[in-house]
């Protein structure tokens, strides 16, 4: 991804609408794709992105120029999405005993026959809380303790949701592979 030019940053600092638009469009593909994982439809994702960018424009004066701007923006976007999900989500406390020790191995055929868009589609079909924990753990790299602190749940519940997400995703993946196999045979 191209780095953001200094002119855009200085323009945003002086509330120049054109420069703000350039930054908005520059970050749009990456960040909206991220927001889509935490929302149900593109409009909701765009709303989340707009809310996050508003925070970016308001607080860009506090941005440390030594760091990477895109990472800073991504952190704001993710936090905005987490806040939104936290408002909507109602977690049920799961005991640690419920967490199964199952492992999920990818069918080798999946690498060839499942495309990336389908994967994203599968994630969006997951329950909201489960998808949220899965995204935070897999894509954002949070640990269970951090997720538990972010969402106000226990680490065990976080583990349960992660396990549930893997189970459901594998099930959807197998189901999709079967459908494609039978469709190919017929």
């Amino acid at each position, binding site marked *: 991804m191209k780095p953001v030019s200094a002119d855009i940053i200085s323009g945003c600092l002086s*509330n120049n*609408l054109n420069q*703000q*638009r350039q930054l*908005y*469009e520059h970050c*749009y*593909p*990456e960040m*909206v*794709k991220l927001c*889509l*994982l935490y929302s149900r439809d*593109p409009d909701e*994702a*765009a*709303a989340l*992105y*707009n809310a996050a*960018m*508003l925070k970016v*424009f*308001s607080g860009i004066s506090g941005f440390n120029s030594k760091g990477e701007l895109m990472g800073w923006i991504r952190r704001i976007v993710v936090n905005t999405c987490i806040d939104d999900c936290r408002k909507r989500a109602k977690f049920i406390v799961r005991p640690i005993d419920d967490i199964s*020790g199952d*492992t*999920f*191995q*990818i069918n080798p055929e*999946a*690498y060839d026959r*499942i*495309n*990336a*868009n389908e*994967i*994203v589609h599968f*994630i969006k079909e997951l329950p909201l809380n489960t998808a949220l924990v899965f995204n935070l*753990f*897999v*894509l954002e790299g949070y640990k269970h303790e951090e997720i538990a602190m972010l969402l106000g749940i226990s680490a065990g519940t976080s583990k349960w949701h992660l396990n549930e997400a*893997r189970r459901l*995703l*594998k099930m959807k993946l197998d189901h999709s592979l079967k459908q494609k196999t039978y469709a190919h045979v017929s």
Partner: protein
Amino acid sequence: MSAENNSFDEFYRQNYEAAETPLLSVQHWNDMAKILGRRPGPKKSFHKRTIRRVISYLGLLAIITTVTYFSVNTKRVTKVSNSTAQYLPQRRTKQLQKVQVLPAFPLTVSAPLLVRPKKKLRVSHSIIRVVSDTIFQQRPETYSKIIPAPNPGAGGIAVRNFLQEIKAPAQIFKINPLHDTMLFGSQGTVIKIQARSFVDSLNRLVQTPVIFELTECYNYADMLAHDLATTSGDAPLVSGGMLCLQAFSADYALKILPSKPVQVAMPRENYDSEMQLFVAKLPTNLSAYPVLKVKPKAVYVEDSKKSDSSIFNPNAAINWQPAGQLQAYQNKTAFVSRRYIKLFEVRQQVKTMEQQDNRHFIVSLNTSIPDEKVKLLLSNRYAIDLHKISLQKVAAFDDKKRAKNTGVILTKTGFVAGDSMMMLFELALKEKIVFEKDSLAFMKLIEQDRVNYLERIRKDSIAFVRQQEFDNAYRFDITGLGWINCDKFRRNDLERFEFSLSLPPGIDRRYGNFKIVFKNQRTILPGYEMNGRISFGKVPLNEPVQLVCIAENNGRAIVCLKNLIVTPAEVEKLSFEFMTPEQFKARLAKL
């Protein structure tokens, strides 16, 4: 197991990275731009908007404060001053009738004095009372520092006797309280008293003859003789005259029923619509004096041992308060909400539509103009041949009455003026003079007629005000006896400052009577001792005044009359001289 799960996660992570990126939507940026437009932060017009908002908030705050202040003051007036509340407008239930009354002086007259009139006078226009805007301009009382001693003892007897000698005696009438009565004062005051309106201190109806005392003060000499000033709080007033009304039965003071107000007409020199009724109010620490329980003695006694509270003249401490009665007039016959129609015009238009040749006119039977002359007038007015005009006379009215100073006859149902008349449209329908289709065909005409009617009512109201202006009187309804004052506030004083004078040695400040009278307007300001000087409060700059000082020296009253132009400098070097009451009165009469 962990390695397998990691490969599972890695598979999804890689696929997510490779997934399609959504296309930019212009709509999303438009939404963002709107949000950015509303978000807080310094903008070009931010300061201007902020200033405008602050100004609007301050204005709103000022309005709320003003309204609250006025409402609180109104409540305070109506709650605190019961004597003022009883002067507020009362619904008039019965018109007064003029009767002949003879002054009962001397009181030994025993013949019947009252005659009930045979013919009742019906008044179609009368005075109404409106709440004055100046009632809210009262200032807090400042009498705690300037009240003279209520029982001065032997001191001041010479001054009081001097004033007593220039006092005009009160006019005394003996009236029958069971009949309507009209009294005429020697200086032009007219008082109308309704029957059965006097009650005693226990609110029992008085049926025995009542002694009614009237004191008129229309000039400076009388006002000064009664030790009266024209101030309301700290605000100076311009007086149109003062009256003192008192009623006694067997030497005990009586009251008036609030439901039967006494109508007072005070003569005036130059009509001023701002004149309003003020009532006397004494400070709370002189509350024993406002109502005289017994008839006071006519002359002050010199015996200091017998001096009691009746020696003290409480008039010096009177604070005039607005009673909420202005000079205004109401036309009771103005039925503005009703719709009138000129039958004359309508029928003429109808016939014009149906028959182009002949014109049929409806005229009033009450008109004094002969038919031939009516036809001639109509012919000239509408350019119609005389022989094509036909007249129909309508006699729908009786009980006619001619309005005062107008050519219009007022009836129960409408007006008759010359050869034309106006009546209610509903009545015209009932009499079959017009038809339903007329109301539709001539709706515009009716509407125009209504506009003209309203305009005529407006002009009539002006005419009535002018008529009342020539009545030479200010009229008030009062429900309490005592001193009343026809006054207005002085509004044109731009600059006022403290005006004071220093007395020469040998003058006893305690028993003196110090006042300044204004030459341009009838205003009297009292002076009080403050810090060894005589202060008159805040007086307009460059105002021509006359200083009137009556003091006591060696048991003799001495007077100082001096013309002054008010300046900030303190007045000094006053010269007092001995003067007889007659000379004093003559000097004051020149003002």
